[in-house]
């Protein structure tokens, strides 16, 4: 029994797994002295559905509708990672237009998540209006997804070899309409959240991620970029059409929750800009490469690690084929894996108990991608 968990000096509390302040279903076991946390342990396992094991029992094609379920707000990155891995292992050439449509879908998804996450950050400190607005704005983007792929949440649209359907008639116009509609409301959003003395008080200087932790722990995405790092897979190892799009990686130096919220806010602007440019340079042509008989589709033995940039940072798939009809191993590496466990446990020590969900949301921890 050490000082940080001494029952005479500390209070022992479980936060989650069912709690509105927790992102998804995970729990944090905390010991605190007064208001100050002395020790925190993250517990996961409430969402373990055995995706990786399931994938070893499914045909290659049957996995693409499965992987998207690993992440609710941003399913497309899973489809993209899986499709990239399969394409590289089997040597499939993806048509040009499919690559651009995929980029569009990924950027729309990032746009939707950042809207929700930015508003959600305000929600954790009681600014419920911001959270509602974020969800409403995201819903406008979901309407676009419904029009494009036929589903609002699990799009199952990016499949190995390309995308499943061409853009529907008038889709470009609808996207621009939604961008304009949301774009007009964003200043209002800023006034509500960023220029809010309550929000600033609760986030500036809170939840510090030290820059030296980035390499040590392998931090990625807004968490790393909010602490001055320029890591962004879209720039570092461009996939799909990102290599052909010129943009600046968004970084902030504050290291705190406010910086991370600012990163998300600026990412929204970047996504809107990228979506407009993608629509402008969308090439023509086919949208899917031919695949062999799907139930007899064997992929040559090989191993690959593919990574894409999700709204939470680098997202990786390690896929192994043994030449059979089914994958030998698919290992999903979500950014929350480290963020929600190693980093969160470290950050919470010394934090105020009221800031726990605030910190957690600023890391956008997502239990499904930890547990798979």
């Amino acid at each position, binding site marked *: 029994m050490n000082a940080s968990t001494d029952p005479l000096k500390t209070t022992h509390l479980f936060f989650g797994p069912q709690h509105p302040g927790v992102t998804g279903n995970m729990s944090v076991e905390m010991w605190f002295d007064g208001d100050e946390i002395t020790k925190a342990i993250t517990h*996961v*396992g409430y969402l*373990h559905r*055995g995706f*990786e*094991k*399931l994938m*070893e*029992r499914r045909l290659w094609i049957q996995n693409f509708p499965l992987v998207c379920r690993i992440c609710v707000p941003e399913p497309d990155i899973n489809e993209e990672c899986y499709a990239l891995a399969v394409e590289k292992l089997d040597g499939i050439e993806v048509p040009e237009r499919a690559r651009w449509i995929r980029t569009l879908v990924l950027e729309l998804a990032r746009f939707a998540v950042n809207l929700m996450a930015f508003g959600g950050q305000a929600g954790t400190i009681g600014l419920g209006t911001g959270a509602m607005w974020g969800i409403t704005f995201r819903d406008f983007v979901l309407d676009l997804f419904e029009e494009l792929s036929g589903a609002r949440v699990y799009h199952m649209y990016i499949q190995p070899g390309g995308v499943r359907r061409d853009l529907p008639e008038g889709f470009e116009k609808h996207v621009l309409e939604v961008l304009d509609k949301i774009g007009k409301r964003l200043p209002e959003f800023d006034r509500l959240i960023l220029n809010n003395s309550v929000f600033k008080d609760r986030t500036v200087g809170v939840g510090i991620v030290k820059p030296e932790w*980035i*390499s*040590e*722990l*392998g931090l*990625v995405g807004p968490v790393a970029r909010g602490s001055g790092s*320029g*890591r*962004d*897979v879209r720039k*570092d*190892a461009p996939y799909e059409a990102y290599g052909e799009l010129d943009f600046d990686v968004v970084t902030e130096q504050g290291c705190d929750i406010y910086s991370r919220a600012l990163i998300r806010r600026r990412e929204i602007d970047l996504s809107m800009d990228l979506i407009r440019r993608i629509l402008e340079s969308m090439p023509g042509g086919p949208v899917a490469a031919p695949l062999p008989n799907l139930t007899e589709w064997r992929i040559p033995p*090989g*191993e*690959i*690690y593919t*990574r894409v940039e999700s709204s939470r940072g*680098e997202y*990786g798939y*390690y896929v*192994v084929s043994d030449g059979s009809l089914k994958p*030998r*191993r698919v*290992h999903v*590496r979500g950014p929350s*894996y*480290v963020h929600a*466990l*190693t980093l969160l446990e470290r950050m919470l020590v010394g934090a105020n108990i009221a800031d726990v969900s605030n910190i957690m949301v600023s890391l956008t921890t997502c239990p499904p991608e930890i*547990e798979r």
Partner: protein
Amino acid sequence: MDKNLQRIISESSFESDTIREDEGYLHVRVSRVHVLELLLSAKQRFDMETLQLISVVDRIEDAVFQLTWILEDSGGTSVFMISADYPRENCTVPTIGDIWPTAILFERELHEMYGIDFPGNPRQNEDFLLEDWRELPPMRRDFDTLEYSLRTYGERRKRTHTDPREYIADSIDEWDTPVPMKDFER
């Protein structure tokens, strides 16, 4: 950056097989005795500062676990992967938790899912995803998920199902061949 990746193995003193090579991407297989040395040199001399993942492939047919360490450089532009085979029985792999704190977490998962022992990992016996798991580690290839599920949760309502191929064969008496030449399972 590719040159840097090439140098990691060309400046090492031992044999390695390249599994996959690409722009900013190198995956090598080495003997398990050289893994720690290669990991350390990649981190200290070649800027491969970040440990992204430790993964396992259960190659049950060869009675080995193939472990893979995935490293990235500090800028995130290149990926370096090291694979090595470890015997499957009582599999023991040295921990690298003192080099990368995140390894403690990754190894904890592998310990639970594959039963691999990482001596020296302080947290490997904590439950990660499963509570009170007393069965075979579930990600091993010899763990039968269907059998486990039937035993634990019982069978779900019977599913109606007829295979068209068998239905056709039976209804036209296709299998009444005067002289069957080949025995095969239907």
